[in-house]
Structures are given as C-alpha cells and as structure tokens.
C-alpha cells in the first residue's frame, strides 16, 4: 500500500527548500551543540600533536587502533552514496528519489572525515603531503608498490568524483533557489546555477549524465574499500589479516553500514524538517528490503572469513578466533557485535510492519552501525595483539580518553557538515520529487487499483 498526496510544484519547492529559506530554530541549536563537540575533538588532536602519541593507547604490537578503525568505518559509511544513488539510478528504482542526495552528501562528508583519520594517526600531521607524487627535492618518490600509496589515490578519486556528482545533480535545484531568492544570496545561486533554464536538452543531458557518472562511480566505489582492505590483507606479518576475502568482505560491510546510515539520516531528516510527504513508509520499506539482502550477503562473507580462519587449523589464525570467543572483554565485544550487526536487526526486517515503522527502522539501523564499528575494531586490534609467533611478544590494548573524544568528534563533524549543507542546498532533489509525479500512474485490475510507473517503450 502506498500513501501519498499529490503536491504541486510550488508546494514541493516550498517544503524542500525550507531548510535553506526558512531554517528552523532547532537547526541552530543542533549545529551549535555538534560544533562544540567538534571543537573538543580539535583540542584533543592539538594535544596529541603537542604532547605526542603517547597520549593515546598505542603500545607494541598494537600500533593501529581506534583511528584506523574509525577510518575504515567512515569509508564504509561513505559507500552508501554510490550504492543508493548509482545502483538504484541504473536500476530505475523509484524508491531512490528521496534518498539520493542525502546519501551522496553523507558519502562526501564521511569520506572527508575518514581521510582525516590516518592524518591524525600519523602523529606528524604536517608530513601527510609526502604521500602525493608532487616533488623530488627530497630525492625520493612515494612508492606506488605500497598499498599505503594506493589509498590516497582511491580516496581522492572517490571524493572528487562524488563531489562532482553532487554538483552536477544540484544544478537544477540551484536554479530553483536562484528564482526564489534576492540580493547577494540570489547572486551566489545565479553563479552556481550556471544559467540553467530547464530546456529539454539540459534535462536529457542530466539524465544521461546521471547514468554515465553512476556507471563510472560504481567501479570507484568497489575499488576504494577494496584498497582500504588491502592496507591490511597485503601484510603477511599479521596472519589473521592476510586473507584474500578482505576486499569484497569490506565492500559488502561498507554497503551494509552505509545503507543503514542513510536510512538513519533519512528518518532524522523527516523528523527534523517535516518532510512527511517525501520520505514515506514505502521508501524505508524498500530500503529495508535492500538492507536485508545486503545483510545476508555480508553474513555470507563474514562466515567465509571466520570459517577460513579455522579451515586449515593454522595456529596463528586459531589464536585470534580464540581471543574473540573465549577471552574477556573480546568475547563480550564479539557477542555485542554479532547481535547488533545481524542477529537483532535482520530477523526484524523480515516483517513488513517493522520495515514500515520509522522508530523501529531508526533503532535497528543505529544498532547495525554500532555492530559494524565493533566489527572493524575486532578485525584490526586482536590480530595485532596476537601478531607475533612468540607469545612473549603478544600485547594488549585499551583506548585512551583522547581517542574516544576524537572518535566522538568525527560523528559530530559529519552531522555538522550535513546540517551546514542543508542550510545552503536542498537535501532532497526537487527535480526527482517532481518527476515522480509525472511518471506516476495507476492500473485498474478488477476492483483493485495498482500503482504503476510510466516507462519509455
């Protein structure tokens, strides 16, 4: 059953630009609060730079910890944009319409935040630029044989590509804002809209552009998280990391957490901005079904990764699995991870009533992301803790308060950036929302009316 009103273009314009032209007071309150947390994070980073990396919990052999976990997590979240926008655009799925821009924006800001993490992790932040092949005055080039050099190439490509994708799709909406504003704001939107008039040619090229860019971004999306996974799996020194499944396992995990993240953001948008006519039950129902399939695929890869640690009964892999299952607090973390990432949410998504409930979908998608953060934590740290073949080299790890503050600040940073974006640009594409009305149809079968969509023959 699909529940919706027929809205005029004027109503669509007014409602979807309300974040830009009639910003609610709550927006300012939330931005101020989140901004405060971000400042706290900046302070913590400043202290790390000033007083040294000894302030965090690093200790031999665990030299990659919270920051790298967080990097992988945010890159995972960033995969939602292309998954929803590109794949659903290519599949012509109608339920993508309210989700695409929010997903793309989440991608860009999540990716930017993820890119900050290895820089903070570096310690000597000011040397981060060494990774780019710009100069030979030091007498050395970055070694492209290293997976650590593949990373910035991939992340830069994805960041630039996603940003351009957002801009191209934003042009028609910038024209709407141009037509509804005055003064200096009008001048800015006029500049950004590039003179868009909505001719048939321009709309046709927008559609083709969407398809071409989607087709180009999809391979990038697959490669980015694969390359991030190869940061770990290329290394033979950490046996539990050196496994061939990491690339697709990370990618499907990214899609799992990313799509869940988008659903969370969409439900928040609906509540915060009053977009009840645009983010409807049928959208989260369809996204929930997609998430169910993705979760099953993720679980398949998780089981493959887990089973292959045990298949050949190799000691160095067995010891990590043993840590996961039999030693506190790792077994508690493992149980929380598997419960939140899969066991609680996925069976719930089997039920239509759950998928069509905003509170339940909000709750289950938050659980998924808690679980997926813990999954990355469990992948990285235990392997390092049991890295050496000699047990006297094994170590322990516990995060410091600075790491916890910085991680929390990254969540606040992404939220702040999305809210700032919403202040300047609409988070739901206006053209998409209006196009849905043009293509909507009904078919009468006996006494029943079935919703339909018009497609080109």
């Amino acid at each position: 059953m699909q529940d919706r009103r027929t809205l005029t273009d004027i109503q669509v314009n007014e409602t979807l630009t309300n974040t830009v032209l009639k910003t609610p007071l709550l927006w300012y309150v939330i931005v101020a609060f989140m901004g405060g947390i971000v400042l706290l994070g900046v302070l913590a980073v400043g202290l790390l730079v000033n007083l040294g990396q000894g302030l965090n919990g690093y200790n031999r052999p665990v030299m990659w910890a919270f920051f790298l976990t967080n990097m992988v997590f945010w890159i995972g979240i960033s995969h939602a944009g292309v998954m929803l926008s590109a794949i659903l655009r290519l599949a012509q799925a109608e339920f993508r319409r309210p989700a695409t821009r929010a997903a793309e924006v989440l991608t860009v800001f999540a990716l930017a935040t993820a890119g900050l993490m290895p820089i903070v992790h570096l310690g000597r932040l000011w040397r981060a630029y060494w990774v780019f092949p710009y100069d030979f005055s030091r007498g050395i080039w970055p070694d492209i044989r290293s997976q650590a050099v593949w990373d910035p190439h991939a992340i830069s490509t994805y960041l630039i590509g996603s940003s351009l994708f957002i801009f191209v799709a934003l042009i028609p909406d910038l024209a709407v804002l141009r037509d509804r504003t005055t003064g200096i704001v009008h001048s800015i939107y006029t500049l950004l809209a590039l003179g868009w008039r909505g001719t048939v040619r321009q709309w046709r090229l927008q559609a083709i552009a969407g398809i071409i860019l989607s087709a180009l971004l999809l391979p990038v999306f697959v490669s980015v998280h694969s390359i991030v996974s190869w940061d770990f799996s290329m290394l033979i020194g950490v046996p539990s990391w050196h496994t061939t499944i990491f690339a697709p396992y990370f990618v499907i995990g990214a899609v799992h957490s990313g799509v869940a993240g988008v659903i969370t953001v969409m439900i928040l948008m609906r509540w915060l901005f009053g977009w009840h006519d645009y983010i409807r039950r049928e959208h989260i129902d369809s996204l929930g079904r997609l998430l169910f399939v993705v979760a099953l695929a993720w679980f398949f890869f998780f089981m493959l990764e887990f089973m292959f640690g045990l298949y050949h009964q190799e000691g160095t892999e067995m010891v990590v699995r043993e840590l996961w299952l039999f030693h506190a607090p790792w077994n508690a973390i493992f149980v929380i991870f598997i419960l939140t990432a899969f066991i609680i949410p996925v069976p719930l998504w089997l039920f239509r009533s759950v998928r069509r409930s905003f509170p339940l979908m909000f709750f289950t998608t938050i659980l998924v992301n808690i679980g997926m953060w813990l999954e990355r934590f469990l992948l990285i740290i235990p392997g390092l803790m049991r890295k050496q073949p000699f047990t006297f080299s094994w170590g322990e790890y516990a995060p410091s308060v600075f790491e916890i503050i910085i991680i929390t600040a990254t969540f606040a940073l992404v939220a702040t950036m999305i809210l700032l974006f919403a202040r300047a640009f609409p988070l739901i594409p206006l053209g998409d929302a209006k196009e849905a009305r043009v293509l909507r149809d009904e078919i009468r079968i006996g006494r029943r009316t079935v919703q339909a969509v018009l497609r080109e023959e």
Partner: protein
Amino acid sequence: MANQAVLGLYRTPEAAADAVGNLQQAGVADHDYEIMTGVPYPEGTFGEPPVRHKLYVFPFIGAIIGFTLAVVEGAGTQLAYPMVTGGKPILSIPPIIIISYELTLLGAIVFTVIGIIFESRLPRPALGAYDTRITEGLIGVVCTCSEERVEEVRGLLQRAAAIEVKVGQG
C-alpha cells in the same frame, strides 16, 4: 536585424505540446525553438525531435588522459628511484594497474562533468527569455525569430492557450 525571443507560458504539457506543434506546422526550424520545464519529462513528450549530443566522447578522452598520467606516475616513480621493496620487481605491473584504474576513472569522471556542462550550453551568463514561474510548474516555449515574424509567432503561441506571451531580446 536582431533576433527576437518570444516566450509562451503554459499550465499544462498538452498546451505546450500544441504550441510546439503550431510552430512545427508553421515551418519553424527545430533549432529555433526550445521548451523549458521545471521537471524532466520523457524525451518526445512535447513532440520535439530527439536531442543530439556528443557527450560520450568526453569520458573516453578523460580516461585516456587519466590512464597516461597514471602510467607515467607509476612507471616513472618506480624507475626514477629504483629500489626493491618487499621482494617485488622494480617495475611492478600490478600496482601500476591499480593506480591506472583509479586515475583512468577519475579522468573519465572529470571530463564527463566538463562534457555535461559544455553540451548543456552552460555556463550561460544571461538567461535571456526566461520566467521564474517555470521552476514553479509552468512550461515555457521560447521561439527565436526575426522581428518580422514576431507577431506571427506570438499568434502561434497564443493559439495554444498560453497564459502569457512575452517578447524579449534573442
């Protein structure tokens, strides 16, 4: 003689399509009129001819440039500072494949965006014949013609139940 732009505004797609039909029957060339909407309609909805473009060329050019840069970077940096790392050959092909994969796609994406803007005839400094109500749901049909034909074109557009017809510089 300077060209004039005659803009007709319509409430429904059917009326706009009638206006386009009137222009076509009067022998107005396809490149002399444009339809402007605030929402994308399927191609051919107003009876207009298909859009011709060369957008597909741009991603190929960008891909070739990106690939070339990647091979130069990959092979160049390895040969410029030849050091065996991790037992891998000095000129290792698999890492070059990875770098060229990324930069080829980046080149294709950047050039596609350039192509979209170019083929959409953007940026356009002045909007010309345009009405802000188009983004509020009205459909505009604008015809560029000589001054002698302005009244004829105005009549053709008015006949299709236009709510307003405006004349401006082309």
